[in-house]
């Protein structure tokens, strides 16, 4: 299906363009403006050129060290949760019952964590993991494990990761489940006999899997609320991710120049990664359409 060229379509897109430009471009201009200046309070600003950027990308300075450390921490975190959530989500999707009342029950329970406000997710795990009043912390400690996410780096990391798995695996599972539903039952049963079912399953979850990876990477790369509520970025700085560092500098210390420079670099990384995913996904989408078209012809 070819699209027709029609420049008037811009009128249809205009409302979206205006709304998003108002919330994205205007604020971003402020950020660019701040990133080149220094302030000593009193609304007095001084030109600082690329000074903040130099400092940010130089690991020997305080700012650069903090930024790079939080960046690596965040990338590591994203890698770990992707490695757990994607396979686990697919397994859960494959384990879903095909029909009956139990499907609705499973779907509702799966979707539940997705609709809990992020700070409440943090609160839930903060309570659940406490050795004195939380079930998890209490059980682990009575098993003889010295678990305490407030003082131990490793425990804090484990808590933040398990929390994220708890919170978001459902998204992967639901996306893949929706993909699997696209396999017609009749074909599905036939495929089981001739052994082609693995391939059919693989094809059906290919696109949802990629959407899930994209969404999970992006959201874990800008994670803020949940770890902030549970660990506050600690112990020390061990769970301080990029967004937490940024809010600390921007709203905590009110270091506008530094925060703005960090924001721009942060945004740039995200746009680059997003572009890579987007290109891969669009290409896969095209391939998929070709496959579907061929089927139609046959």
């Amino acid at each position, binding site marked *: 299906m070819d699209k027709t060229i029609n420049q008037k379509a811009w009128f249809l897109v205009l409302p979206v363009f205006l*709304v998003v430009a108002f919330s994205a471009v205007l604020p971003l201009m402020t950020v660019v403006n701040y990133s080149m200046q220094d302030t000593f309070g009193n609304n007095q600003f001084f030109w600082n050129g690329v000074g903040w950027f130099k400092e940010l990308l130089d690991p020997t300075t305080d700012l650069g060290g903090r930024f790079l450390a939080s960046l690596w921490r965040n990338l590591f975190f994203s890698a770990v949760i992707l490695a757990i959530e994607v396979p686990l989500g697919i397994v859960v999707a494959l384990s879903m019952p095909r029909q009956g009342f139990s499907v609705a029950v499973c779907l509702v329970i799966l979707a*539940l964590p997705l*609709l809990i*406000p992020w700070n409440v997710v943090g609160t839930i795990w903060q309570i659940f993991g406490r050795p004195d009043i939380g079930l998890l912390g209490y059980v682990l400690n009575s098993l003889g494990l010295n678990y305490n996410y407030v003082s131990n780096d490793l425990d804090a990391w484990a808590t933040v990761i398990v929390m994220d798995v708890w919170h978001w695996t459902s998204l992967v599972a639901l996306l893949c489940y929706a993909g699997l539903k696209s396999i017609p039952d009749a074909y599905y049963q036939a495929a089981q006999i001739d052994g082609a079912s693995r391939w059919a399953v693989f094809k059906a979850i290919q696109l949802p899997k990629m959407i899930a990876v994209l969404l999970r990477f992006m959201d874990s790369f800008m994670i803020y609320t949940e770890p902030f509520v549970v660990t506050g970025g600690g112990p020390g700085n061990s769970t301080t991710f990029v967004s937490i560092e940024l809010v600390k500098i*921007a709203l905590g210390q009110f270091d506008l120049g530094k925060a703005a420079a960090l924001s721009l670099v942060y945004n740039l990384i*995200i746009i680059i990664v997003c572009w890579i995913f987007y290109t891969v996904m669009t290409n896969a989408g095209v391939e998929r359409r070709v496959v579907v078209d061929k089927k139609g012809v046959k």
Partner: protein
Amino acid sequence: MHSIPGRRVILSLFLAFLLLPIYWLVNMSFKTNGEIVSTMTLWPHQPTIANYMRIFTDESWYSGYINSLKYVVINTIISISVALPAAYAFSRYRFLGDKHLFFWLLSNRMAPAAVYALPFFNLYSAINLFDTPWAVALAHCIFNVPLAVWILEGFVSGVPREIDETAFLDGYSFPRFFVRILVPLIASGIGVAAFFCFMFSWVELLLARTLTSVDAKPISAVMTRTVSAAGMDWGLLAAAGVLTIIPGALVIWFVRNYIARGFALGRV
């Protein structure tokens, strides 16, 4: 699908893992603080609804819920109404810069809220919207509008182009075609997009907290009040948490039969 051994076991374990922390929160919300701190009990031995009563009788508490719902509803309406025509345009036409525009929109969905917190504060203070539901609703548009466009584009593409052409031949004007024919055809898609807008606006805290101070304070920000000089009021915190889960749970229950189709996002 039947090839995975013990699939019932895997699924049950996973669902239990999802429910256990939530159960613990509900459990705590019915306990007195004395019971919470002094003993480890698997269910409330002296059940009390005092925590809930405090929230329902104190205006500063329950207004938090109303404020949250206000900006979520405003945001969903704005997002869907601006996204509909754009989704149609992206699905049907090719125009100057369409692909770049689409990517630019999507990249805003991915932009970290932390980057925008401070500039938004300045922006909405400057135009006198600070501390109103409108500020939060507009701010949340940055991630919900692109998402709505993306989802609706998938659904519009599922409508055969012949339908448009026939309608135009029958003398429908564009606005009339849009309202009378297209919107009813993609009603389920609009429902899905609204569900996702509701979801992402309801769960967001950083922007909602930064853009409000007193009058429009969302419930998630009110919850921080449970920390006082006397220590944490755990029971109250748990009760407030449970109450924030309920709207989401209700929404899911009503859309349970559409979840599978919804998460296909009109594409899969």
